[in-house]
């Protein structure tokens, strides 16, 4: 074998980079996220699987309908009516950004720009009011 001095270190660097994820995770336990379920509400505006996969699409559609087209009619779910709104609709039940939104978002490195405009409700405040 020729040029050992450069080829062996080069290969070690290559394999090291390829195994980066394994070194990075070493000793860390990868737990699936457990978003906090709302207290006292059983049904969401859409089925669970849809919300897991496509809630961002729904929020995007709602934003366009409400802000651009002025369609503010309410949405029915489980016998109750909810506002088409992130702060007053979704977060009426899912009160905590930290314990609900952020659990999955941080797990999957998703940083939506909702909070560029919206203000997240103060933690526990809505829950206190509901009591």
């Amino acid at each position, binding site marked *: 074998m020729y040029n*050992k001095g450069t*080829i062996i270190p080069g290969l070690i660097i*290559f394999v090291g980079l390829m195994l980066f*994820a394994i070194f990075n995770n070493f000793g*860390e336990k990868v737990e*699936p996220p457990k978003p906090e379920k709302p207290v006292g509400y059983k049904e969401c505006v859409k089925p669970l699987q849809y919300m897991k996969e496509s809630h961002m699409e729904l929020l*995007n559609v709602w934003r366009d309908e409400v802000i651009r087209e002025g369609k503010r009619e309410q949405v029915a779910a489980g016998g109750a009516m909810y506002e088409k709104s992130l702060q007053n609709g979704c977060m009426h039940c899912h009160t905590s950004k930290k314990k609900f939104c952020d659990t999955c978002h941080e797990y999957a*490195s*998703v940083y939506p720009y909702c909070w560029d405009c919206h203000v997240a409700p103060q933690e526990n405040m809505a829950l206190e009011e509901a009591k």
Partner: protein
Amino acid sequence: MRVLYPFIAVLALIVVAFLGGKVTGLQYLLGVVLPYLAFGVFIVGFVNRVLYWAKSPVPFRIPTTCGQEKSLPWINYDRLDCPSSKLEVAARMFLEIVLFRSLFRNTRAEIHDGPKLVYGSSKFLWLFALLFHYSFLIIVLRHLRLFTQPIPFFVPLLEFADGMLQIGAPRLYLTDSIFLLAIAFLFARRLALRHIRYISLPADYFPLVLIFAIGATGLLMRYVYRVDIAAVKQITAGLAAFSPTLPAGIHPIFFIHVTLVCALMVYFPFSKLMHMGGVFLSPTRNMSNNNRAVRHINPWNDPAIKPHSYAAYEDEFREFMKDAGIPVEKE
């Protein structure tokens, strides 16, 4: 035919993965066993191929001179195109690997009326190759979010920069669109240019079709048939932590994407894609052109065979040469 076979091969992979992705037992095979196998083949095959290349001696410098070689001190020489020191070679290699300098010098020959042969610069191959490779790199790095926990700091930064146009939700990544556009161009180039089509083989079309299919299934997974990303990360991060789990109810598109990526990893070490490692070992790029300054000795010369000068040869055969009427230098 040469274009059709790669399409059929990729289509067959997609069909197999689609059917397998619907059966729970095969899901484990496609989502856990196959990625480990493919990754193993990729790493071992890659290292093996580089070591195989390293066994070939390259005793002599191969000067592909596009510039003046270093000779007398008062003649300016071209430091990049005809490097004489290691530093200059490193600069040439850096430009080659990072900016694809060879492709930048791609030319096009045309015959005009006269007849007159005209060479012109042709930068499109360079441009789209650059776009394609860097998009691919960023896409691979972005995928680290699915394999790492904690997620390294540069991944969210890349995602932010990549999605900064804020088109739709989830945000459209610039690299995704550039990637598909660039690979479509590279494919169209092989079909549209007569002389390139003539030298293109199934091994040239297959990786293009496969990589396009990987990009397309990735986009479909993100924008059309959505998958629950938290469930996907359970599989992928589980793979990286050697504790694979397989949550139920994942859409078959995920398994198609994974199977195609595995096919790419298995195919990689045995194909032209090895230029990823090969570019570092290009003999015409990674050696200095110092043939005039340094004597390079062939390492496989047999030391038992001594140099035999003409004078010694003549001493040995003088009589025979004289008999045959061959002129000799010394009588």
